[in-house]
């Protein structure tokens, strides 16, 4: 260009324009900067060839590395699985009592069980295993089907009243009210008796009448002293814990037309090692026998 102007002080060419007497020098980019810039361009081309980069209609260009977040995740999961494979194998080979009493295995089982619990169990039993009406609290020491490791393991493996597993826990309490086995007043007398044996406020006179009716109708399953029978899944009525609530109304409703909870047979969905870990985890919650 003809109007190329050289700045006197620096000897550098100016950009040729001027604002309020200020001119901009046309210094070249520093060489190192320029080469770094070219290097980043080369890098980006290599990157686009190597990794998935250009979005197309359905997917992006795959890149020669075959790298995707999904495969990376799969690889990480496989790596994590491989890392714990040794312990998982030992869990599979050990019986429940050995797992519980071996510090290393117990730690692993409780951690693994806690994680499986959150995914498969917490929906019904609650995130803290505290249960709710109809869903047993797994922290306490009251067990319907038994609270030792084997019993817990069996309950998880085969489930309860699910109709899909031949070995599922099963029990059925008659509907004393709706099937007209007992009169409503008789039911209410039994309720007074149950309140009495579970240490609550009650009418002693009616409870005495209820005791007789209990002996004839209920003791076969729940036992003479209402202590229940874990072999047939008859709950202990003489304690402070009640699956469907221990108020007079709740007890009456449960005798009149009982509710029956259902639990899936987890052996169809979970591996035996996972069920073992879950059993040890539940056992560790504080109520395990």
């Amino acid at each position: 260009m003809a109007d190329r102007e050289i700045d006197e002080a620096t000897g550098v060419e100016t950009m040729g324009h001027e604002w309020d007497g200020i001119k901009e020098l046309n210094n070249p980019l520093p060489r190192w900067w320029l080469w770094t810039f070219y290097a980043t361009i080369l890098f980006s081309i290599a990157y686009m060839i190597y990794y998935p980069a250009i979005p197309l209609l359905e997917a992006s260009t795959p890149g020669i590395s075959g790298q995707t977040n999904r495969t990376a995740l799969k690889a990480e999961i496989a790596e994590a699985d491989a890392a714990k494979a040794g312990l998982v194998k030992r869990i599979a080979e050990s019986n429940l009592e050995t797992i519980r009493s071996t510090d290393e295995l117990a730690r692993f089982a409780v951690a693994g069980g806690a994680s499986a619990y959150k995914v498969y169990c917490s929906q019904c039993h609650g995130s803290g295993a505290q249960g709710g009406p109809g869903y047993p609290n797994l922290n306490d020491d009251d067990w319907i089907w038994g609270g030792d490791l084997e019993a817990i393991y069996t309950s998880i493996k085969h489930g309860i009243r699910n109709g899909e597993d031949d070995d599922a826990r099963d029990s059925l309490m008659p509907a004393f009210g709706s099937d007209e086995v007992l009169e409503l007043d008789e039911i209410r007398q039994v309720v007074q008796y149950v309140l009495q044996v579970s240490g609550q406020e009650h009418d002693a006179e009616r409870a005495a009448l209820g005791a007789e009716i209990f002996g004839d109708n209920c003791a076969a399953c729940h036992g003479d002293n209402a202590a229940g029978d874990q072999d047939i899944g008859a709950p202990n009525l003489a304690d402070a814990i009640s699956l469907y609530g221990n108020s007079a109304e709740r007890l009456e409703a449960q005798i009149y037309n009982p509710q029956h909870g259902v639990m899936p047979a987890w052996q169809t969905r979970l591996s035996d090692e996972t069920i073992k870990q879950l059993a040890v985890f539940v056992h560790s919650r504080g109520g395990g026998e």
Partner: protein
Amino acid sequence: MAKVNIIDTTLGNVTTPLPGDGVERIDAEAVNSKENRSLYEARKKIHPQRATGTFRKFKWIVMIITLGIYYLTPWIRWERGHGLPDQAVLLDLANRRFYFFMIEIWPHEFFYVAGMLVMAGIGLFLVTSVLGRAWCGYTCPQTVWVDLFLVVERFFEGDRNARIKLDASPWSSSKLYKRVAKHTVWIVISVLTGGAWIFYFADAPTLLSDFVAGNSAYVAYATVGILTATTYVFGGLLREQVCTYMCPWPRIQAAMLDEKSLTVTYNDWRGEPRSRHAKKMRKDGVPTGDCVDCNACVAVCPMGIDIRDGQQMECITCALCIDACDNVMSKLGLEKGLIAYATLEDYEANMALAGAGKHISEPVITPENVRDKAGKLSEKVSSFSPKVFLRTRTLIYLGIYAAIGIFMITHLTMRDRLDVKVLHDRNPQFVVLSDGSIRNGYEVKILNMKGEAQQFLITVGGLRGPLISEAGSKGIPRNWLATEVQPDQTRAIKVFLTMRPDRIFQSSTPFTFTVSQMGSTDQKTVKTIFNSALEN
């Protein structure tokens, strides 16, 4: 000094005979001198000449000590026993422990390190206010490693003049050999420097064999690679540019100097007017200062400045110009210290004595004013007195420095080697048991920071008839719980606390866990709460 070796004439390109005073005038230009400084100029390479003298000797000693500390510290062993690392200084990141001889620091005690950094900062203030940029000139790794690299450079390529010549000469097999040899040794030093660093983070002997065998972690190789590169580039190629352009220190330190700080000073009150022909001029009765303009101070300067321009940001106060000038002064039979450590206060007093203005730009100096009739330096000349060390500012720095140090040492010697943390279960908050009693769960974490396994007793205070049991244990619940914690370990114990319902009166009852070490008075009490369904 019997023989003053100002320049190694066997290597030099001396073409003119020495002047009458026997001092060679070096054709040295301060590449970073005030006049030459330009924002638009490419860097000119500096070829510092080898200096000899007191400060150079001192710097050699400092170099040996600092490099020795750096390279050898990881190899010092310190028996701790019980499977603990036996390395005296170890930053064990994987296990989150910091070992320093008899001191072991856990992550929650990291404030000791913060305290040390604060002390380092204050210490720097203290040293700077007394001795100027002593850190830069003597102990900064940049200075030390550049010095080391210069030794290598000088070994292969010769001293200043030979190197200048070599730079200018066309490529030849000898030049190629010198360059390759120099860079090879530099890279070896760099690898060793980067390599030594990683030994602070793992057991040194194990790491060394793993590293050589190719079995170390990727991060070890990456760290060594990066530090090798920075050492080589900073020490071999960038050199003084690191100090001038990259380092924030010079700017901070320069701001902390005051009129009583000792800095490397050219005493123009006795040096000016300088002349290359001082002897002749004195004979002719022309007032002449002590500086014979031999440029020895410029030739040795690793920063490429001319100290005679006065205090400059580039000056790292390495004091090599003092050595160079002292040698010349001895040869001329004059007092040493034309360039010397001096305070600004003394300098200005002497300038006034010499009749000059306060600033270097008013150099009307009369050399006779500073000398007595016998030609010796006048008694009126102010000179260094140790009293400058004792001034309010330095005493305040020293006070803060000592206070933090004493606090930290006291704290360190009295610190607990037992810590307990209690976490109350939140989900569920409490559990009703079949007999109606209430159970709460807690995670009790016991940090046994001692080097031996310890037995601990957990007891409860503030509750009536509590029963403690460890989760998963089949023991009968009691009102205490015993447990063992391995040396230098944290143990988390899941504890259940069960209370009869008739002994609880609040929905949330505050109480304490006390963890006592058996056979010792060490104990720790932690507050927490016991929850129940009661409403109030």
